[in-house]
């Protein structure tokens, strides 16, 4: 059992692995008073100069939120959340007077980006990516906006969109994730501070990949992002979302909502790399990540594809879903979820087949190490009218060490005989044979494990856009560094 012993030691060292991006930037911020009440909601709304209808919507959500029970079905354990112990609004001070170019951006901010290893100017040029930086809930710099405008693409913060395109926001916001959907989404609807808004007009293929970097910075600040992406007929967009967060002691609540809408022949590709602070060796202080992500393929032949690499957060509660309403529409979900230390992840997807000949594909790879718990929870539902629906699901789990858990909880409901559904799941540890094979060819154990894990995740990682794939691979290796050989 020498291998097992080694593994245990490796896992121990993994737990001690320090969070690379743990630092705090000191910026004086404009905060709402601590706690949650109707006043908080009104404060946020007033701060953002919002129209009456949006305030009403927020208040409706808030009042509904008070009556909603906390979802308890996830395989997650955490102390009850004290909603009164958080700040619900924090904006960098320069908000009132928005910088028009990067030169005007607070140098503190730029330093933070540099620490993160994403020099802002280089990124603009290098990757051809327009970055809508979200720094503590308010977008402070939007790049490439003009260039996107030329082709008619709207890419801005949701606060700007409320001011500039109220009709679009009013029409689509809450249409995929209604405010009463679940407690976390409801909270978001009441207190969301910012996020991104994307509208791709008919027949436009977005000329670049759109990207938002989220970053929690203020202590005790819950992050309530709201993203809305609408792809009109025949359009295409690829959207990237990634996050890192500084080290802190108190648990932070993060309840984001993402809504995607695709019309006929449109396609949205949504990729996420999530690396929030996972907490220390005892699991203390990590981010609580409760995310509601849902897309609706409203039009014929439309497609929504979710790709996620989840390596961070103390708790991940996230089920990016697709409602396949249009005939021939396609939903995809590719996921790598890595947990170690005391992390808990309960993640998966829902594929709701409503239209004819709708297709969905789910590839989920879970890797658990340390004392973590990693759960895939998913639903595939075929309604009676979804003639010829097709689903393929594959959920694989890899266990590293004997103190972690890997769980699979799929729900499959079919009301149509012509629907073909396939589900398969496996759970195992890294094959000793594969490791031995690599080792006898002179590859160190660490590299061998890296190779095997990389191979295990490859199907998902290759779905990521190139710029992201590099970062994701790095994250995967950081997560496993020193853990397994």
């Amino acid at each position, binding site marked *: 059992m020498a291998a*097992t012993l080694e*593994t245990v030691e490796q896992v121990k060292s993994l737990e001690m692995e320090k969070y690379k991006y743990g630092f705090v930037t000191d910026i004086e911020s404009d905060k709402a008073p601590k706690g949650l009440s109707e006043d908080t909601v009104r404060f946020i709304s007033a701060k953002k100069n919002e129209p009456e209808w949006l305030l009403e919507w927020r208040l409706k959500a808030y009042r509904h939120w008070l009556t909603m029970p906390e979802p308890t*079905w996830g395989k997650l354990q955490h102390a009850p959340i004290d909603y009164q112990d958080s700040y619900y609004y924090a904006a960098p001070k320069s908000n009132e007077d928005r910088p028009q170019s990067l030169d005007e951006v607070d140098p503190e901010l730029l330093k933070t980006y540099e620490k993160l290893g994403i020099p802002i100017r280089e990124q603009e040029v290098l990757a051809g990516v327009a970055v809508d930086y979200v720094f503590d809930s308010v977008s402070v710099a939007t790049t490439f906006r003009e260039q996107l405008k030329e082709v008619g693409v709207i890419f801005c913060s949701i606060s700007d969109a409320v001011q500039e395109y109220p009709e679009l926001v009013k029409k689509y916001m809450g249409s995929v994730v209604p405010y009463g959907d679940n407690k976390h989404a409801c909270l978001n609807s009441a207190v969301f501070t910012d996020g991104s808004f994307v509208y791709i007009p008919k027949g436009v293929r977005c000329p670049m990949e759109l990207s938002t970097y989220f970053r929690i910075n203020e202590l005790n600040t819950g992050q309530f992002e709201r993203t809305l992406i609408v792809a009109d007929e025949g359009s295409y967009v690829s959207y990237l979302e990634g996050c890192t967060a500084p080290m802190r002691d108190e648990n932070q609540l993060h309840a984001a909502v993402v809504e995607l809408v695709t019309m006929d022949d449109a396609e949205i590709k949504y990729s996420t790399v999530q690396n929030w602070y996972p907490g220390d060796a005892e699991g203390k202080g990590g981010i609580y990540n409760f995310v509601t992500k849902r897309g609706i393929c409203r039009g014929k032949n439309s497609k929504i594809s979710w790709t996620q690499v989840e390596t961070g957060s103390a708790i991940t509660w996230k089920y990016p879903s697709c409602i396949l309403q249009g005939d021939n529409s396609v939903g995809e979900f590719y996921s790598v979820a890595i947990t170690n230390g005391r992390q808990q992840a309960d993640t998966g997807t829902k594929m709701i087949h409503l239209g004819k000949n709708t297709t969905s594909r789910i590839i989920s790879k879970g890797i658990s190490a340390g004392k973590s718990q990693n759960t895939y929870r998913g639903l595939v539902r075929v309604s*009676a009218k979804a003639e010829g629906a097709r689903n393929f699901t594959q959920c694989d*789990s890899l*266990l*590293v*060490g*004997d*103190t*972690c*858990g*890997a*769980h*699979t*909880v*799929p*729900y*499959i*409901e*079919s*009301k*149509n*005989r*012509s*629907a*073909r*559904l*396939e*589900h*398969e*799941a*496996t*759970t*195992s*540890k890294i094959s000793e044979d594969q490791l031995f094979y690599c080792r006898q060819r002179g590859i160190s154990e660490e590299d061998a494990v890296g190779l095997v894990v990389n191979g295990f995740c490859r199907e998902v990682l290759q779905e990521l856009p190139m710029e992201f794939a590099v970062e994701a691979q790095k994250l995967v290796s950081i997560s496993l560094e020193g853990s397994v050989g």
Partner: protein
Amino acid sequence: MMTSANDQDLFIAHFDQAKNHLPGADIDWLANLRNNGLSLFKKVGLPSAKTELWKFTSLNPLRKQQFLAPVTKAEKSLSVTDLPRLLDETKSHRLVFVDGFYSEELSDKGLPKGVRLQSFAAALQSEPAVANKLQQNLKPRDLAQEQPLVALNTALMTDGFIIEIAKDISLDKAIEILHFGSGTPQSSYHNRNVITVGAGSKATILEQVADRESHVYFSNSVTDVTLSENATLHHYRIQESNASAFHVSSVQADVGNGSSYDSFILNTGGRMARSDINVNLVAPNSSCHINGAYMLKDDQHCDITTRVDHKTPHTSCDEVIKGILAGKSRGVFQGKIIVHEQAQKTVGNQSHRAMLLSDTAEVDVKPELEIFADDVICSHGCTSGQIDEDALFYLRSRGLSREQAQSLLVNAFLADAVEALQNEDLKDLFLTRIASWLGQNPQ
């Protein structure tokens, strides 16, 4: 819609009506057990759609019925010739239960060696030593929340079979148990069965649920199975009652060192049939097979819910369930494999495949893996679909009619689950059942 308080009332009233008639009324431990069961049932009530384990199976049709308390035996007279029989007398020894009560005159005489067969009621009336032994074999269950019907059974258990197989016995005859509905409408009964297999023994127990005519009744049975070392139990059940009957059954098997629990369930009858199978692999080298098939039509509902707990290293389980759904029927499979922290070297495989033959049938599946040990190989697979058009075309191109071809394909689909059976007689029996179902329900 009735409230949940009202749902329970009927059964709580049953308890009051029946308590003086229930066997073993003067035994203290039993009275305690019954009271515990009742208070748990009172607390939780009948499962609703919010009960996770009953998410896909609604008890609403059951709630609408006014069942009678399990008090008196059926008065209708029956003779052995009225009863169906699976295996002939040379191959099985049979016990007969009519409307939940053991019938001595209809059962076979003369016991196979090394086996003690008794009815639950009789065991409680025999000397205290026998009754107390029974106490040990009634398994404590986690009755809270998810298993209120087990709690109800515990409160109301009336009769059932007790099968004790001594050490090192290899039975050459199967033990056949017929649960027969004589046609008493609105009857309800809560049978409690106990099977214990001694070290090194091998046995086959074959249960059949059938009835004489179409009538509504409710059977809520619980079976406690214990296998000591190196024992093998083949536990086969065939449920082919009329399409108005309600069946809920729960089996819990504890499997000892080197033992194997081999279960097969064939389900074609009933308005609603829910079968819970819980297996605890409590010692190394224990294993289980949970196989089954169901064939449903009209508005039948069948739910097979399994849970296998791997509690020690070197255990294995294998599950293959197949279903055919016609009409407006609904099939449910929920299978959970739990590998506990210390259960290294576990192998667990599970598969459920359903074939939908109509546009109005529905299948709901929830296979679950819950794994806390790393050195394991576990998998599950689920498919759902209709008859493969290519295969159909192939057969038709060789001159078979559409009906013949479909029948052949459905037959082959189901036979797969039956193939694993080791008993040739039973394999034939099940295959015949499948063929005759297909014959009666041409696709």
